[in-house]
């Protein structure tokens, strides 16, 4: 077990390095000069060259990469071209904001999916099963950015019960989960974000529980006289590792892919940060944000894999 763990962790290192190469290189696909955004529209070429030199963009790319990597390893992801603030600080602040709604979405999705998925698995083949399957397919088919807009119109503009935008009435610094006045800002983003995880977790729950229920040992349990509730409890316990794994992966996926929802709700998370960085060609922020998000995803995958293997050694990746 420990050998496996060590192997998996060690294996993640070249992946991480590969990720850094891609993060760094992505940015150079862009047209235009990196410093263009800092200058007024009719600045001269001479000014552009001057600034490029000052920021080190005139050096050959491999050299820029190694310099960047060397600093990144120590935690220094550079400073934003736009705001001159350290990238790591901005990204970590944004990340914590994204985690709030991602976690909320996954918890909400899990709560509903668990109840309905288990029910559907128990009554497999019957109408309730079909309804649940239908809901889960709808969940993964709805364009959630569209749903977000619709929810804003209904709950914010027409009914006026929930805020349309932002994170807290005084900004994200004051945001707290214990006050309704602040928490209500997170409701619509969480609901919108939870659509896809709802569909996926519901489907996984149903599948996992149904599969366990179809096993022979369940017949044995019934023959032994165990109540249906107990049988169900056993089945769920067996299926739980799988379900939790899916939940973990969904969480990782949400953290990395929240850009559309955060744009609509002006939620100051990593997705929002990323879209702004793309717009303003703020290269250090772009590289830093993508890097942090990708590495988080790698870490989440790793943790999920290890946990699963710990619980059920049959599940192993080569």
């Amino acid at each position, binding site marked *: 077990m420990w050998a496996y763990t060590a192997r998996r962790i060690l294996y993640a290192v070249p992946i991480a390095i590969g990720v850094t190469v891609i993060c760094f290189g992505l940015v150079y696909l862009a047209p235009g000069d990196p410093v263009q955004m800092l200058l007024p529209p009719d600045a001269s070429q001479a000014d552009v060259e001057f600034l490029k030199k000052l920021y080190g963009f005139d050096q050959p790319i491999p050299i820029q990469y190694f310099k960047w990597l060397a600093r990144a390893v120590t935690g220094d992801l550079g400073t934003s071209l736009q705001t001159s603030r350290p990238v790591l600080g901005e990204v970590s602040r944004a990340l914590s904001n994204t985690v709030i709604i991602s976690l909320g979405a996954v918890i909400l999705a899990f709560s509903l999916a668990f109840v309905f998925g288990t029910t559907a698995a128990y009554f497999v083949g019957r109408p309730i099963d079909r309804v649940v399957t239908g809901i889960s397919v709808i969940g993964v088919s709805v364009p959630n950015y569209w749903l977000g807009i619709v929810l804003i119109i209904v709950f914010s503009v027409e009914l006026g019960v929930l805020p349309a935008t932002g994170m807290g009435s005084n900004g994200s610094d004051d945001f707290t989960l214990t006050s309704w006045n602040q928490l209500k800002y997170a409701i619509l983003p969480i609901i919108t974000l939870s659509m896809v995880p709802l569909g996926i977790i519901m489907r996984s729950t*149903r599948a996992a529980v149904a599969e366990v229920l179809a096993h022979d040992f369940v017949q044995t349990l019934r023959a032994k006289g165990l109540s249906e509730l107990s049988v169900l409890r056993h089945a769920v316990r067996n299926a739980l590792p799988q379900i939790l794994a899916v939940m973990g992966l969904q969480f*990782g996926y949400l953290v990395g892919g929240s850009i559309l929802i955060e744009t609509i709700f002006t939620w100051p998370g990593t997705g929002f940060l990323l879209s702004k960085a793309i717009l303003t060609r703020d290269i250090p922020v772009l590289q830093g944000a993508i890097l942090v998000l990708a590495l988080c995803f790698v870490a989440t995958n790793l943790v999920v894999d290890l946990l699963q293997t710990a619980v059920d050694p049959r599940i192993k990746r080569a």
Partner: protein
Amino acid sequence: MTDVTVGSNLGSNLLVDDAPALKVRGYWATVANRLRYDYVTLFFAAVIVLIVLAAMCAPLLAPFDPLKTSMVYRLKPVGFRNFLLGTDELGRDMLSRLIYGGRMSLLMGLVPVVTATILGGMLGVIAGFLGGRTNMLIMRTVDIFYAFPSVLLAVAISGTMGGGMANGLIALTLVFIPPLCRIAETATTQVRNLDFVEAARASGAPTWSIVVHHVLGNVLAPVFIYASSLISVAILLAAGLSFLGLGVEPPTPDWGLMLSTLRQAIYVQPYVCALPGVAIFITSLSFNLVSDGLRQAMDVRI
């Protein structure tokens, strides 16, 4: 039946059931039989056919020119005069634009998936068949791309390349190659180790024929099913890219782009503005359900 997560969750690498679906005589008959009574799948397959036909015959079906603007008839509601589904912010007929928009959405959904299936599938089969060092090299490189959540990768690639349809297609293809490669590789590896392949090798059959006759047949099914489940994801992602302004350029009709440009008018004609989202939803839903139905019918475990 193990129904493992596919679709949007491209990070899943869960393989619980080892036995691949083996081709036997009458297999397709069995599949057809299963499908015959699966009304849901049949219904939505018909919807897909309708959507595809409508997109292909757009010039014949569309009542108006989707690019013709008219300031007088701007943002009219559903059913106004001849505009069955109203008009958009430039006075263009919504119905016509939705029909033509289907072309873009289907294109941006199908092309990346097909391309990625071919490229990724080939890569995976090569990796799985050759094994050893080559396998390691290919799969580890693929794993690096797997480290990115798909939305992030798609937005990052097309965003830094400056948007546009071509860049969007490239970005989406790159996003889908890793999972398809992995599916193909896993399936190939499993088949490769089976007895009958050893037997074929032992009997001196050329590698080429082994690959074609034995391996491909058993790999195609899981790859095909997985690819079909990716189509709905591709459509959603492509529309999302257009929504962010990173996909097709105006005035090309495209559902994601229409959602984005109509957002401004949501206070004037909310129902009209919701239509492109409904179109995306129905298309994505149809592909999802049909893909699920096919998987059940073909009894493929992925």
